[in-house]
C-alpha cells in the first residue's frame, strides 16, 4: 500500500496513560474529532510507566516524533505518577535536544478523560510541528530505513 501523495508522512508514537489520556483519545474518537493517521497510540497504565528507553528506541527505529500524554497534575490515578513522568521527560528531552533531536519532536501533554477536543487539537498541532521539522535524522539506526 503506497501513500497517494508524495508528501512527508511522519511516524509518530503517542504513549497514553490508561486512565486519562487513552480515555481522552477514545473520546476524541467517539466525538469524531479527526487527527492525522500518522499518530499511533500505545497504551500504558500510567505516564510514569514510560521508560526513557522506549522513547530512545522509537527514535532509533525511525520515529519522527514521540508524545507522552498523562493525567493533569494532581489528577493522576496513581496520585503521583505524572510528576515522575514530567521530571524524567524534562531531563530526557533536554538531553535529546542536545544530541540533535529537536525539542519540537518530543512533547508531554496532560489530557484528561474529558478532553477529547484537547487530545485531537494536540495531535493535530504535534503532527503539524513534526511535518515542519521533517524527517528525523538523528539517532536513527540506518539499518531500520528502507
Amino acid at each position, binding site marked *: *500500500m503506497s*501513500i*497517494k501523495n508524495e508528501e512527508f508522512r511522519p*511516524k509518530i*508514537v503517542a504513549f497514553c496513560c490508561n*486512565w*486519562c489520556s*487513552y*480515555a481522552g*483519545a*477514545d473520546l*476524541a*474518537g*467517539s466525538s*469524531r*474529532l*479527526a*487527527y492525522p*493517521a500518522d499518530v*499511533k*497510540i*500505545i*497504551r*500504558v*497504565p*500510567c505516564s*510514569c*510507566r*514510560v*521508560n*526513557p*528507553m*522506549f522513547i530512545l*528506541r*522509537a527514535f532509533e*527505529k*525511525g*520515529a519522527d516524533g514521540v508524545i507522552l500524554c498523562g*493525567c493533569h497534575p*494532581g*489528577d*493522576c*490515578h*496513581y*496520585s*503521583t*505518577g505524572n510528576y*515522575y513522568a514530567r521530571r*524524567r521527560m524534562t531531563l530526557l528531552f533536554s538531553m535529546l535536544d542536545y544530541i540533535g533531536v529537536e525539542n519540537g519532536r518530543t512533547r508531554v501533554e496532560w489530557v*484528561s*478523560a*474529558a*478532553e477529547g477536543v484537547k487530545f*485531537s487539537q494536540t495531535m493535530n498541532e504535534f503532527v503539524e510541528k513534526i511535518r515542519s521539522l521533517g524527517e528525523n535524522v538523528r539517532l536513527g539506526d540506518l539499518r*531500520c530505513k528502507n
Partner: protein
Amino acid sequence: MQRIGVFVCHCGSNIAATVDVKKVVEMVQMEPGVVHAEDYQYMCSEAGQAKIAAAIHEKNLTGIVVCSCSPRMHETTFRTAAERAGLNPYMVEIANLREHCSWIHKDMEEATKKAVILARAAIAKVNLNTPLKPGESLVTKRALVIGGGIAGIQTAIDIADAGYEVDIVEKTPSIGGRMSQLDKTFPTLDCSACILTPKMVEAASHEKITIYTYSEVDKVSGFVGDFTVDIRKKARSVDATKCTGCGVCQEKCPSKKAPSEFNRGLNTRSAIYTPFAQAIPNVPVIDRDACMKFQTGKCGVCEKVCQAGAIDYTQKDEIVTQKYGAIVVATGFDTIKLDNYDEYAYSQSKDVITSLELERIMNAAGPTKGHLERLSDGKHPHEIVFIQCVGSRCSDDRGKSYCSKICCMYTAKHAMLIRDKYPDVNVTVFYIDVRTPGKNFDEFYRRAVEEYGVNYIKGQVGKVIPQPDGKLLVQGSDLLDNKQILKEADMVVLATAIEPEASVRKIATMLTASIDTNNFLTEAHPKLRPVESPTAGVFLSGVCQGPKDIPETVAQAGAAAVKAIGLLAKDKLMTNPCTAKADELMCNGCSTCANVCPYGAISYEEKEINDHGIREVRRVAVVNNALCQGCGACTVACPSGSMDLQGFSNRQIIAEVDAICR
C-alpha cells in the same frame, strides 16, 4: 513461539466503512506467530465470541488479538470469552480500530494502513504475553459515605438496609445538607423539611449507621475492598454523651454576632449553636473563632448554664481510624461566588439576593420568619425580578460553562409561591431558555405563567442599577419585542450557578478519583457506569458528579448504594495481576523502587540467591501483589532494570514501538 489468532471486527459499519477489514485480515497473516485470522460483523456478539472459542480449540491458539473498539469498552468481554474457551484471559490483546482509527479518519487507504500497524503492534505484544493469574484480596464489609446531605443519607440508608455497616462523615455540625435549607420542593411543592427530616431520623436511628458530624476525612489509604480511612472528629467543645439538647446554652450565649451559615449569612447565630432546630445530632458545637471564652478567656456562660455538665472547653480533635470496603462520595454543591458579576449589584444592594437566600427568606424558620421582605428596609416588595443563568452557560472564564439544571424549575417554583402567597406582588423572570425536561416539569412552569401570571421575558439582564430611593432599575433585553427595557423592582433574585462543594478537590485527591475541569467527579463511563468512579471501590452520589435535582439525586444515591452493596456482598476480590515484579538476580536492593511506590507495596527481604551457581544472601525487592496497583513508576526508577511490570513489560512495550516504527 505463540500460536496467535487475529479477529477483526466490522462493528457493523463503524469500522468496516472506513477500514478495509478483509485487507487487514490478509496483511496480519504475514505476521510472526499468526496462525489464524478472520473478520466478523460483531465480534462482541454471542456468535462472534463463539468464533473466537472455536478458533482457540481448532487451531490450538495460545494468544489472540481482537481488532475492535477500545479496550475500555470490551477488553473484559473478550478476556472472559477466551477464559471460557480455556485460554488465560491475559493472553488477549485489543487493537483499537474504532476510536483510534475508523472514527477519526476518512481516507480508507490511510485508515486501513494504520489499522494494520495497530494490529501488528498488538500481535507483537501478544507474542511476549505470559499467562497471568489474579490474586485475591478480602473485602471489608463496611462502607463510608462522605457527605451527609440527601444523597449521602439515602445511600447510607440503602446500604444499611442491605445489612452492611455504614459510616457517614459530615463536615458541618448536622446532617441534612442543602435540602434542609430549602423551603418547598418542585414540582409538587411539598415542604422540604417534612420529607427530609424523617430520612435524617431514620439514618440517625438505624442500627447499622454511624454518623460522624463536624468531622472530615483526613487520610485515605488502601484500595478497593480494603480502604483505611482516618476521620478527624473536630473538637465540638460539647460532650455529646452528656448533652441533652435543651438549647439553654444557645439562648444564654452572649456572643451572637457570627453569621449564620445555615441562613446564608442573612442573620446571625450564637457562638455555641446547632445550625437549625431539627439538627441531627441535636448537640451544639462551639465556634471557637466566635466564642469569647476562647478568644478572650472571659465568659464561660454556657458551662455555667448547662445542667448536664456537657460543655468541655478542653476537647481536642480526635482521629478515628476505620477500614472500609467501599467509599461513596456525596459531597454536594454550593452556589458560586458572585464577585465576577457585579453588574447585577449583588455586592452593592442588600435587595439583590441569590435564589438560595430567597429559600431562607421564604422559610418560616428563616431570618424573616417566612415573610417576604426587603433585607435593606424590611418593607414588603411589590415588584420582584428574577434573573436566570447567572454564572451558568458562560464560556468566558467568569462563570461556569455548564447549565446548572435546577434553576429554571426552582425559579418557576419561587415565582409561583410568591404569586400564590402575595397576589399583590408582580413577578418578572428574565430568561435565555426555559429548560424543563422532567416529569411534570414543563406543566409546572406553564402553570406559573398561565395560572399565576408570572411575566416571563426572553432576554438576559445587562445591569441592575440601584436607585437613590432604594429601588432597583433592571436594564434587560426583551428579544421577542426587540427592545431594551428598564424595569423598576423592589427585589432582584439571581439564579446563581451551582458548583461542586470546594472540599471535593481534596477528597478526590485522597481517593485518587478523577475530577473534571469544573471539579465534578468523573464517572467510570458517562453512560454505562454513571455512579462509579474510575477508581475501583469509589462510588458517586448526587451533585458531586454533575448538577441534578432531588429526585435524580435520590435515584443516583440508590444506584450508588446498589453498586457498593454489590461490592460488599463479595467475600473476596480478584486483584489486578498486572503488577510489578523484581528479577531477584538483577536486583541490588538499592530501595529506589520503594521510594517511588505510592502504595508502599515494595519491601525488602534478605534472601538466598543462586546466581549462576554462586549462592549468597542478598537484599532484594519483593512486591506485595495485593498492594501493587500496577502503575509502573518503580520499573522506570529501577537503576538495574530488574523491576518490570507484568502485562506491560519493557519487552512488550518495546515490541509495540518496533511494530509501529517498522
